[in-house]
């Protein structure tokens, strides 16, 4: 048992790259993750700095300039993406709409993630009665059609950004609970959990430091799926007129408002639709990438 001097530079060197360095290497070697992250960061940047980036006030109507076509369809640079049926600048509304979509996606996924993960992990870890109660709640939740319930609640409470976020947050936890319960069940029986308990680790410690890291990659995938799901649901609710209320700029609302003119001015629907698609794609790419770089199998 020789005493080892850990200030020895030679020893420091042979300890090899640290886990952080290896993670960085994996992140920058993953194209899907990088593309998704870059697109998401750009959209996030746009949302945060919307007042600086938008060329016009998104609420300012100009009935003289209704439905001007975008630049690539013969419009002017005054309104690069044209104007809508009330003469509002489409690009500015699109930029402000990013705020609504990202906010709803992030907060709704956060609320439902906390609810669903707590329920699922508790059910998987403790089993027995806890599991029975959680499984029952999941079944009750799965029996409720999200859009219908959201419609009813919004109809009663009135549509607003806050109501939509809370309603979606309280409705979208089912997948978190199902996936986290199954993953926890799988991990709970591993010997390292028994080893941690034999070491004397407390139940919160076992859950947070032994179980959570091993189910986190599934959680990341579900978070991104549910974020995308919430964004699409908000768009659907807004399209149905029960989500974010006009004149707040929201991509779903823009599709809804453009649908009457879809045959003659298809870009009114296509532009917000394309941006929505891009956002959801970026979130999913990033989720898949995060799962890949954090999975232990890829650490050879």
């Amino acid at each position: 048992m020789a005493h080892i001097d850990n200030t020895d530079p030679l020893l420091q060197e042979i300890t090899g790259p640290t886990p952080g360095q290896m993670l960085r290497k994996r992140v920058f070697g993953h194209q899907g993750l990088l593309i998704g992250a870059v697109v998401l960061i750009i959209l996030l940047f746009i949302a945060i700095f919307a007042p600086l980036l938008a060329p016009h006030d998104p609420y300012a109507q100009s009935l003289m300039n209704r439905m001007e076509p975008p630049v690539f369809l013969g419009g002017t640079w005054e309104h690069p993406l044209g104007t809508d049926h009330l003469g509002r600048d489409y690009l500015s509304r699109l930029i402000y709409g990013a705020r609504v979509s990202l906010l709803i996606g992030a907060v709704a996924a956060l609320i439902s993630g906390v609810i669903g993960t707590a329920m699922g992990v508790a059910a998987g870890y403790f089993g027995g009665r806890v599991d029975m109660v959680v499984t029952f709640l999941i079944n009750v939740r799965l029996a409720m059609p999200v859009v219908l319930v959201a419609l009813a609640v919004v109809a009663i409470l009135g549509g607003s950004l806050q109501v939509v976020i809370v309603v979606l947050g309280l409705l979208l936890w089912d997948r978190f609970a199902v996936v986290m319960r199954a993953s926890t069940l799988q991990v709970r029986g591993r010997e390292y959990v028994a080893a941690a308990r034999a070491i004397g680790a407390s139940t919160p410690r076992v859950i947070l430091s032994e179980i959570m890291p091993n189910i986190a990659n599934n959680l990341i995938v579900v978070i991104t799926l549910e974020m995308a799901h919430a964004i699409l649901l908000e768009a659907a609710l807004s399209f149905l007129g029960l989500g974010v209320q006009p004149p707040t700029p929201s991509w779903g609302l823009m599709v809804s408002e453009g649908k009457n003119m879809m045959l003659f001015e298809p870009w009114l629907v296509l532009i917000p639709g394309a941006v929505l698609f891009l956002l959801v794609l970026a979130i999913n790419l990033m989720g898949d990438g995060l799962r890949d770089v954090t999975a232990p199998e890829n650490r050879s």
Partner: protein
Amino acid sequence: MTRQSTQSSPVLELRNVTKTYKVKQGLFGKARPLTAVNDVSLSLPRGEVLGLVGESGCGKSTLAKILLGLEAPTHGQVLVDGEEIGAQDRLSLARRIQPIFQDPYSSLNPRKSIFDIVSLPLRVHGVGGPQDWEKQVREILDIVGLPARVMNTYPSQMSGGQRQRVAIARALIMKPEIVICDEPTSALDVSVQSQILNLLGDLRREFGLTYLFISHDLAVVEHLATRVAVMYLGRIVEEADVAGLFDHARHPYTQALLKSVLTPEPGLGVPDTQLGMAYPNPIDPPSGCQFHPRCPLATAHCKAKAPRPVPTPQGLVECHLYDTESPMFDNKAA
């Protein structure tokens, strides 16, 4: 050395330990008891290695879980240094008893670096700060024969033997008195097995450890153990010192186990243990002596009456053949 250790008080003692599980059969079936560990009494003097052998499903691992405080016994007591483990808090029990599990691919958290895994006991018990942890981890890795550079690697980057060394380092970093080795070599290659066994032997001498060594591999037990207990359907059917058991196996089950050891001799094929039928269902244990359906020497008496533990020169045996008060007592056999 043997005399010394028999004089000292047992560091680990089990008194009539029984563990019963309720097993539900089907959705509406009635829960039936499954006795995984049945009235086990063992005592383990300091510095000794007790080998616990038996078939898969005989209750060896349940016994290990009880000793680690992961399961509570239904009846009976487990005493560590004369103190009952139910009365101790988990942390102080963990300082005294540590496990080494069977499968090093499952016993190390794949998300944690080797440093995190080995230093977990220090962090849980709040010993020292990050600086001490690194020093202690380096020391213990050195002791188990791993280079310090593995600290930043993950279990998936290591071989089975290296992983088992990490598991040993984790078990020993708190300097426990007792180590429960639950088949520590059965998941490893033969060449690596011997390395790990030698390491365990060296560590025992160096730190004065006491092992409970659970295995189904008799050769491994003969190599490391000082005493051996043979388990069948949750009961200890024979206990003896290692020479006594391997030279004069008394219980017919022990004899069959010894016969089952494979030899490298070509042409001998798989040994015939004459055990006949398969391992019985523990939910429906046989009457009388639980071994009687498979015992080549069984009689009607075995079917009717359970044998009692009989002392032998080397230990204990539960078999009518050795019980002087039994009609089956066989002078030749005893």
